[in-house]
């Protein structure tokens, strides 16, 4: 192009640009005439102009700055104390240098991270955490990270120097089945260890694996993919690289990664599958020309079977690789399964080939890792040496194997603080890990929340399961929805959990138990499950209850439950576990391992492991043993203390003592606590303050909480904690979490609870209070709308912080939550603690309101745990009632009145019950509350018992006509019954008594239907009772018996003792009716005795009547009379009159059968008739009249008998199919003939 021509182009370009876009084409047509080349040129520049956007708008220096700043480090350059020696290579994620650690005088690999990756501080933090966590696994196939830091040149990672070549180079040169078998197993082992620890690699590819000349594989860059953007690198993004997108490695992504979805451990398996494929065949399983092409191929292509490309590939290995490459993540094997599959394939291959010159894989693993490293380096690593405990470890392994074979058990590791319980369990599980594939779930009990946070360790364990494997969530949702709801509620996924929580409320403890058992069974079906509960001496009663239930089912489950506890704490606290243990032990389901202190030889063994090749005097182990009495924690601390002080130090590469033994002896602390105190004293004041504040949060604490409490910057706290972990071994990083307000936090725990105890105990009261308040306030701020999930903790913190009003608030919240999940004992304990806080407050309206709410929760919780008859229940409700009246008659008073009503009703004090029911109804009416339905039902029910049947019917009918499921069903959770079921059941019985059997039956069946409709066990049970009772009254014993059977099953399953005993009684009576006399009678006796024992008395006159009736049938007339007398006494005492007529009549029948004085018999029948008439109880009048008519028939007074019976019979308008009316009709016929 000439300058002239270009000038022409340019002037046309700008002339066109000056016009509106739509008129440019016409303009060019006209301006260019037939110079089509000119037109094309201008048009293409116009298009380029439109697309160019930000192109070259930022100066070149800005683009180059990243490169310049992170540009190659010259030999000699320093990053902190690492001196760059030479470049080793460069990958997508940074340049790697050979460097010298000038402090430790060793060579390391230093990787400089490109600045593009480290702009997001959160990503960097996550990366650091994961990289460290992976390194901390100390796995021979995972590269060790020595240090992560930031210098002028950017972020850098310092790693173990691995000599060798990348797997990429290996694949290029010698891919083969043998290579795959030897190398692949190690890769899978590395992933298995990482996955078990909850770490996903996310960027598995041949370039991230180093193969040492001795055959070791080292997986690099764990967590590094965290630095890549989390969003989908889709095709359009890939094309936009120019505008600043950074994208990971396409060719090794899993389909879910390629789609930009969340990835789990299974994603690594897919990537590893590609690597395996390449190792076996030398070819990539997916065919594509460009990076973006790989994305497409991975999500859509099905790879050709590798055996087609590599004829020597065993079929099993071919299958394994294809399973790893399954597009569906859940169908891929786990890393552990890959390890085992490879092992089996290798064994098979070896036995088939019998070649002796091959490298034995077993030897490879046996090779000491530290062979090439100086002892000093080994000892400085955070190894945990487990010495002694051979027997215990053996026991644990045996228990595991037995569980693996389907016979699970509960293994208790008992011992005093610092004896090494947790370490033993962890080490034993780690030992099992390489050989066996199993799932672990772990939950800790908390000292602060001891006994009050329902199911705490269990929920924690289940949560850990959920997090370990994404397949768990759907399984738990399906099999254990009530548990799932509690856990997702804890993790704050609220929408669905709200729905599920409704189900939880409707559930019972029995259902929760059953669900849990089913879920665990299903989980263990795949791989044995090990559940580890740490510090069981702080467990809540509900957990122990569940543990007992699960333990009872262990024989037959592939589940091993391991617990640790301190026996002395258990004894002191009269822990409920002690009550269940002997029984479980007797049934062979539970074993207890008592950990004893270490002996001298074990101390010596420990020293030898810690300081390989040491030259300590022979008496040194003896001294350590004498000082520590073999307490492992004390011993380990003491040794560390000596090393930190330079008493144990290397001379010329050999560990030795720098002081004489007597000098050492005088200098040593006397106890574990003394040791810990000294360690604390050695710390810088800032570190000490930090740990003290942390101890206030608890054994586990969080960086984001401690920082604001001490008014320090988050990163400073994190740095200090990191140092306290690495240098002083005071704390241990647990994990990283996110608060509901999205603050990130690192969760730490003290290396041992004694550290926390010691720091906390040293706090002065005022400081303790101030810190507790500060911690509580910080947590409040983080949890925002989800305070409920930490209510318990906040309550305890404010309690210590002496902010009693707030503490009471949170106790109330926590207690309310506990009662929602049916943890009544915990709810009661929390409410009691809240009430103690109230006592500290000065009298005020607010105080009374708080007390009122707490009493209410306590009252209902106590009703559930102690039964209705406990004096405390009544006292609690009575106080709540008093407070409620003082506070003004509000809706809050309704549950109190209902509580008092229910209490009286159950205990049979019907007159009093009526009083509360009427008060309730009046209040509900005034408030225009939907609870009016409940009020009418309650008044009607009391009246029914009192025998005022017509009034009862009016109220009950009103309740039934007002009842609308949408409006009233929610009241179920407040009042314990579905209002419709209750109203219709009582209306059914009342109508039957009043002489309307058909209507009674239809309401009874409606109650049954409603009860089945709601997922509420109590209401369901009530509905069944309603129908059964009516059937029985109508004389349909068969149907009544069937319903009773159903009721027994339901009540047993749901753990409803009250209903169980009633159902047992009615079932017994049905059995007697069909001739199973002895069994039926026994069942009835058992049922009634049990009802009486739980202090329930309503309907008891009727229950006793059934028993007496059965006794009459077995000719036990004397006993029948005793029973009837008891029932009569109850009538007087409780004014339970609805069945009074029948009691008289039956007594008359008994006496008549015994040929007693006819006058007495007749007077009893007359009495019955009179009572029935007075109550308008036509059905009972009919029965009494029939009895009298039969007596008169015997006496020859036929006409009088017929006249009397005909009069009553004529009254009836319905129910002519029922037994009583049919009998009456037959008798009338008889009398007429």
């Amino acid at each position, binding site marked *: 192009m*000439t*300058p002239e*021509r*270009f000038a022409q182009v*340019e002037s046309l*370009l*700008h002339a066109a*640009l000056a016009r509106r876009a739509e008129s440019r084409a016409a303009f060019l047509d006209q301006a260019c005439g037939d110079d089509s080349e000119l037109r094309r040129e201008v048009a*293409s*520049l116009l298009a*380029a*102009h439109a*697309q*160019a956007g930000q*192109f*070259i708008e930022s*100066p*070149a*220096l*800005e*683009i*180059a*700055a*990243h*490169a*310049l*700043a*992170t*540009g*190659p480090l010259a030999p000699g350059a320093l990053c902190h104390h690492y001196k760059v020696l030479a470049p080793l290579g*460069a*990958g*997508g*994620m940074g340049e790697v240098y050979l460097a010298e650690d000038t402090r430790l005088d060793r060579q390391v690999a230093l990787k400089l991270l*490109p*600045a*593009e990756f*480290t702009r997001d501080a959160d990503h960097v933090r996550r990366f650091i955490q994961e990289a460290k966590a992976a390194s901390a696994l100390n796995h021979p196939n995972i590269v060790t990270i020595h240090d992560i830091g930031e210098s*002028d*040149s*950017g972020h850098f990672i310092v790693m173990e120097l691995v000599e060798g070549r990348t797997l*990429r*180079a290996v694949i*290029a040169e010698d891919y083969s089945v043998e290579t795959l078998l030897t190398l692949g197993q190690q890769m899978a082992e590395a992933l298995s260890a990482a996955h078990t620890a909850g770490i996903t690699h996310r960027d598995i*590819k*041949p370039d991230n694996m180093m193969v040492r000349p001795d055959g070791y594989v080292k997986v690099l860059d764990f967590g590094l993919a965290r630095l890549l953007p989390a969003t989908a690198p889709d095709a359009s993004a*890939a*094309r936009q*690289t120019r505008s*600043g*997108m*950074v*994208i990971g*490695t396409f*060719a090794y992504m899993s389909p879910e990664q390629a789609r930009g979805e969340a990835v789990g451990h299974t994603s690594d398996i897919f990537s590893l599958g590609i690597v395996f494929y390449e190792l076996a065949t030398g070819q*990539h399983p997916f065919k594509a*020309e*460009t*990076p973006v092409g*790989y994305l497409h191929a991975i999500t859509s292509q099905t790879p050709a079977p590798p055996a087609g490309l590599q004829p020597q590939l065993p079929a099993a290995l071919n299958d394994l690789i294809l399973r790893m490459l399954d597009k569906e993540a859940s169908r891929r094997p786990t890393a552990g399964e890959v390890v085992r599959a490879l092992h089996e394939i290798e064994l098979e291959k070896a036995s088939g080939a019998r070649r002796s010159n091959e490298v034995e894989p077993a030897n490879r693993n046996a090779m000491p890792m530290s062979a090439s490293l100086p002892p000093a380096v080994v000892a400085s690593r955070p190894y945990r040496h487990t010495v002694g405990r051979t027997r215990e470890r053996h026991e644990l392994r045996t228990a595991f194997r037995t569980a693996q074979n389907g016979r699970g058990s509960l293994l208790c590791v008992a011992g005093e603080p610092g004896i090494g319980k947790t370490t033993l369990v962890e080490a034993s599980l780690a030992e099992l890990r390489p050989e066996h594939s199993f799932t672990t779930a772990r939950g800790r009990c908390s000292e602060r929340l001891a006994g009050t946070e329902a199911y705490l360790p269990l929920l924690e364990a289940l949560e850990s399961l959920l997090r370990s494997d994404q397949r768990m969530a759907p399984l738990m949702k399906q099999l254990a929805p009530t548990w799932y709801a509690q856990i997702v509620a804890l993790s704050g996924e609220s929408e669905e959990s709200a729905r599920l929580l409704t189900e939880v409320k409707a559930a019972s403890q029995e259902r929760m138990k059953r669900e849990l058992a089913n879920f665990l069974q299903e989980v263990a079906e795949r791989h044995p499950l090990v559940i580890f509960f740490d510090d069981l001496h702080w467990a809540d009663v509900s957990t122990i209850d569940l543990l007992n239930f699960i333990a009872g089912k262990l024989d037959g489950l592939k589940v091993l439950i391991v617990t640790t506890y301190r026996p002395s704490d258990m004894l002191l606290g009269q822990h409920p576990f002690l009550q269940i243990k002997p029984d479980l032990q007797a049934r062979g389901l539970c074993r207890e391992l008592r950990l004893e202190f270490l002996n001298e030889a074990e101390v010596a063994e420990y020293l030898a492991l810690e300081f390989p090749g040491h030259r300590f005097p022979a008496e040194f182990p003896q001294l350590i043993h004498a000082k520590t009495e073999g307490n492992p924690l004390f011993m380990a601390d003491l040794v560390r203390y000596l090393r930190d002080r330079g008493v144990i130090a290397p001379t010329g590469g050999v560990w030795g003592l720098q002081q004489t033994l007597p000098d050492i002896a005088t200098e040593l602390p006397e106890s574990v606590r003394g040791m810990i105190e000294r360690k604390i004293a050695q710390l810088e004041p800032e570190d000490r303050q930090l740990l003290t504040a942390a101890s206030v949060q608890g054994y586990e604490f969080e960086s984001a909480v401690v920082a604001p409490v001490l008014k320090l910057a988050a990163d400073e706290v994190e740095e200090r904690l990191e140092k306290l972990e690495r240098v002083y071994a005071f704390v241990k990083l647990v994990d990283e979490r996110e608060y509901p307000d999205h603050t990130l936090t690192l969760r730490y725990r003290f290396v041992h609870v004694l550290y926390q105890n010691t720091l906390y105990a040293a706090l002065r009261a005022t400081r303790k209070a101030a810190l507790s308040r500060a911690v509580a306030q910080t947590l409040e701020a983080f949890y925002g709308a989800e305070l409920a999930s930490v209510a318990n903790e906040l309550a305890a913190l404010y309690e210590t912080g002496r902010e009693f009003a707030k503490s009471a608030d949170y106790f109330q919240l926590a207690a309310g939550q506990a009662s929602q999940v049916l943890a009544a004992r915990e709810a009661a304990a929390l409410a009691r603690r809240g009430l103690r806080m109230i006592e500290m407050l000065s009298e005020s309206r607010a105080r009374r309101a708080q007390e009122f709410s707490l009493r209410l929760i306590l009252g209902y919780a106590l009703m559930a745990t102690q039964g209705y008859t406990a004096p405390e229940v009544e006292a609690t409700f009575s106080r709540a009632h008093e407070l409620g009246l003082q506070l003004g008659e509000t809706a809050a008073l309704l549950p109190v009145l209902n509580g008092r009503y229910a209490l009286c009703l159950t205990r049979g004090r019907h007159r009093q019950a009526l009083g509360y029911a009427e008060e309730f109804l009046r209040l509900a009416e005034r408030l225009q509350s939907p609870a009016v339905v409940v009020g009418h039902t309650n008044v009607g029910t009391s009246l029914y018992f009192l025998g005022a049947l017509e009034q009862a019917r009016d109220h009950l009918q009103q309740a039934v006509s007002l009842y609308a499921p949408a409006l009233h069903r929610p009241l179920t959770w407040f009042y314990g019954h579905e209002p419709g079921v209750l109203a219709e059941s009582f209306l059914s019985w009342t109508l039957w008594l009043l002489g309307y059997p058909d209507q009674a039956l239809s309401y009874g069946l409606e109650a049954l239907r409603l009860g089945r409709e709601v997922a509420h066990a109590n209401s369901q049970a009530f509905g069944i009772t309603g129908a059964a009772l009516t059937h029985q009254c109508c004389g349909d014993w068969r149907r009544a018996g069937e319903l009773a059977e159903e009721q027994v099953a339901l009540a047993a399953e749901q753990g409803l003792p009250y209903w169980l005993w009633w159902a047992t009684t009615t079932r017994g009576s049905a059995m007697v009716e069909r001739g199973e006399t002895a069994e039926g009678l026994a069942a009835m006796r058992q049922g009634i005795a049990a009802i009486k024992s739980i202090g329930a008395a309503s309907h008891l006159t009727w229950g006793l009547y059934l028993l007496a009736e059965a006794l009459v049938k077995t000719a036990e007339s004397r006993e029948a009379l005793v029973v009837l007398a008891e029932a009569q006494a109850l009538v007087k005492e409780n004014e339970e009159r609805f069945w009074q007529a029948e009691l008289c009549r039956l007594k008359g029948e008994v006496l008549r059968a015994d040929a007693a004085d006819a006058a007495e018999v007749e007077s009893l029948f007359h009495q019955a008739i009179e009572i029935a008439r007075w109550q308008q109880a036509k059905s009972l009048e009919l029965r009494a009249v029939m009895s009298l008519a039969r007596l008169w028939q015997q006496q020859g007074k036929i006409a009088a008998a017929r006249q009397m019976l005909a009069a009553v019979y004529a009254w009836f308008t319905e129910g002519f199919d029922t037994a009583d009316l049919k009998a009456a009709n037959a008798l009338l016929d008889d009398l007429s003939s």
Partner: protein
Amino acid sequence: MVEHSPQEITQLLLAWEQGDQRALDQLIPLVEAELHRLASRYMRRERAGNLLQTTALVNEAYLRLIDQRHAQWQNRAYFFGVAATLMRRILVDFARARQVQKRGGAARQVALDEALVISEERDADLVALDEALAALAAFAPRQARVVELRFFGGLSLVETAECLHVSPDTVTRDWHTAKAWLYRELDRQDQPATR
């Protein structure tokens, strides 16, 4: 590293201006060192979330380099023009070197291990842009110079106009022309490579 005085650098620039190629050889490492220093500062600020105006940064670099008391540098814009050429040279050389280093070695299977990292792309872009710019200069020297001054030299619109003794409107017009042309050139080069 020996500190070089602004006077010394100014002398070298003058000498280069007057055709002394040895002066350039001495200049390059000095300016490069200064750029490294600036770049790390830039990155530190960026990591701290504190983005710095690049133009200000470049200006600061220039001002540090020159001896402001020197009479001939009273015309700041003129000096900037010289410095921009130098910057282009240094930045492009640097990018080219990195590209060679990264892509070098036949063992690397680029297609398979394609961690598409932006810095690499940008290095490639700088080299390609430099070549396209040279092509443009053959028939549109002023337009190419505008790009050199603004993009490589980091000069503002007004500074560029001052340096070229034209109106800011002309600079804007040239800039749009050159940008469209360069974008089209680079886009054409891209076609066979990635599509």
